[in-house]
């Protein structure tokens, strides 16, 4: 960074032509004339307008340089900060992705386990071999007697001819697939 000249640090002072206007005490300002004795008055001198402008331009350039420098430092710091966040988030992302892979593998393994446990052959062999169940010789139907049919039998036995089923076949296809499926396709 280039050394910055002192005046530029004091931007509160009004620059440019306004100051040149104020320095020479012109007779046009009647209130100040009586207070000042004529002897102390410096010799008036013609101010070179172009030199003033060059100086002003230099000051402006210096100031923009400073602003740019400050901004550059700030930007670099911000970039470093963002990069640090990016890197740490990337690490986190990698971790999460790994977790997803593991969770999916686990989901799959559990799905397989459930399906294996539910397999009819296994259920039947568990029921007969381990739990001592037997297949009935014949099916026993319990029919409500006509007397108590209207009052108590409702909901217990399907009325003859009705096609309503307690085991709705064909309607049970996993209803939540729509919510689960998109997340499995990785």
């Amino acid at each position, binding site marked *: 960074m280039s050394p910055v000249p002192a005046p530029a640090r004091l931007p509160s002072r009004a620059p440019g032509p306004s100051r040149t206007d104020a320095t020479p005490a012109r007779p046009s300002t009647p209130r100040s004339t009586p207070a000042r004795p004529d002897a102390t008055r410096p010799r008036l001198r013609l101010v070179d307008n172009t030199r003033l402008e060059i100086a002003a331009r230099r000051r402006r350039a210096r100031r923009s340089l400073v602003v740019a420098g400050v901004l550059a430092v700030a930007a670099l710091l911000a970039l470093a900060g963002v*990069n640090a966040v*990016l*890197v740490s*988030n*990337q*690490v986190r*992302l*990698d971790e999460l992705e790994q977790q997803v892979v593991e969770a999916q*593998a686990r989901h*799959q*393994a559990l*799905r*397989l386990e459930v*399906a*294996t446990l*539910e*397999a*009819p*052959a296994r259920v*039947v062999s568990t029921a007969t071999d381990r739990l001592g169940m037997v297949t*009935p*010789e*014949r*099916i*026993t*139907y*319990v*029919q409500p007697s006509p007397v108590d049919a209207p009052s108590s039998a409702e909901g217990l*036995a*399907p*009325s*003859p*001819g*009705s*096609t*309503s*089923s*307690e*085991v*709705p*076949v*064909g309607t*049970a*296809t*996993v209803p939540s*697939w*729509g*919510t*689960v*499926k*998109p997340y*499995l*396709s*990785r």
Partner: protein
Amino acid sequence: MLFLAVVVALGGVTVRLAHLQVVAPEAYAERGMAQRLRTVELPAPRGSIFDRNGNELAISVRRQTVWADPLLVEDAAATAAALAPVLDMDQSYLRDRLTGKGSRFVYLARQIDDDRADAVEALDLSGIGLRDEPRRVRPADDLALAVLGDVDVDDQGLSGIERQLDGVLSGQPGELLVERARDGGTIAGGQHALRPAARGEDVVLHLDRSLQYEVERALSEQVQATEADGGMAVVMDPRSGAVLAMASVEAPGGGGEPQPTRNNAPLTSVFEPGSASKVVTMSGVLEEGVAEPENVMVVPDSLQVGPKRFTDSSSHPTQRMSVTEVLAQSSNVGTITLAQRLGPQGVDQYLRRFGFGRPTGLGFPGESAGLLLPVDDWASTSIGSIAIGQGVAVNAVQMLGALNTLANGGVSVPPRLVRSVIGADGKERPVASPGGERVVSAETAAEMTSMLASAVSDGTGVNAQVDGYTVAGKTGTARKPSTEVRGYESGAYMGVFAGFAPVEDPRLSIIVALDEPHPYYGGVVAAPVFSEIAEYGLRLLGVAPTAPLPEASVPTSPPTSPVTPRD
């Protein structure tokens, strides 16, 4: 002096920098990129196959595959010796694989279970690696094996639904191009190109897992009990054409428990339907107004057609029978007499309209369309033999289709095996199915249904009765064509029963065919299996009983021994 050293050093650095940055920067940039860039293959798991209730019939799971880079293997013999017991493989085979020249990637064991994979990893052998690979698993083992089919070790469908819908089930593997740091972590803000993997779509079948199990069980039991070579059965919903169960088993040579076949016999193999196809002949007779069900006709013991004499299954004096009785008692002579009045063109036309001789439309791999002789090629005896289902070959689904048409009021019902496909978005898309066409009038279908009901209530199909339900159906016993000589194999029969229940509002249609059972009559061997399957299936579907229930609400007497009707 020090100053000079610094100048020289700085000069060296400057020259090197200029060389790196100016002379050949691309080569170095490329080398750096090659070190960082990794292509990660994103697997696309194969879709699952579900039954109608969402139960998994076939799913793909990740398994570990052991591979080797022979160049990096330090001591092939020692490595092979360490791996052999873990992988349960031959040591010398492994050593040969490990010393293989030319390849830097050889498979040692594919898709092993996780315990073994962990054990291999624990050995920490140089040049030996593990990678994920999908493996197809059927959680219920051999259940519906023939329908589902198989995949090869690379997850490609080989047979059955796996092959038919391979394009739907297979996914499209994706690829991720990413910059990786030395520790394997992704370099933030580095190059990143993703071609996402498309997961294979899931297939939902009409099969019902429980019913399928019961059908396979009942079939296997009867195959064993009757010492048959094998058997097959199909259960359908006669209104929608949905195939609820489809099974085929075969007895292993030398006895033992029958095993499910890999070949889906109900679609891929054909047999002579025998008397079961009288259903078609008789439908034509009624539809064309040749006779009415209650018409009485004179049925002699035998009938001469051309050079051949046809008889009934058991000899009887000339008797008067109604058309209904001809079907219920499965009289060959009566049926042929009626078929002669219908004419060869008529018989042939109805066989074709009922779907014989053309594919079922399921598109199943290896499906056979059956055999139907063009009517111009018929011999003088053909009107006799074809009318009673000889010289005709059908697959089981075609035969059951004829019954479905009658159960469905005379309109054919195209069979359906695949219910829907679940896409990657989780949406279920039903698989479209062609509509049926009218084959016979509703009146003919109703008349045939009641005739078939009497075949079960007091005809050859009494063993097909189900407590609490009305059943309609037809028995069939057909000789098996010889594979060596023209004609039939002596003493080799197929015992068939096809029917539906309940008669009033058919919910299930079932065909059972046993290959060379002892005894061989369809009404004796196949009908009881029908009864068993129907009883279970109707209960599973929650169909209320339609007929008076048996007296006893408590089991009092053991089931009566099967009647032995003649076919």
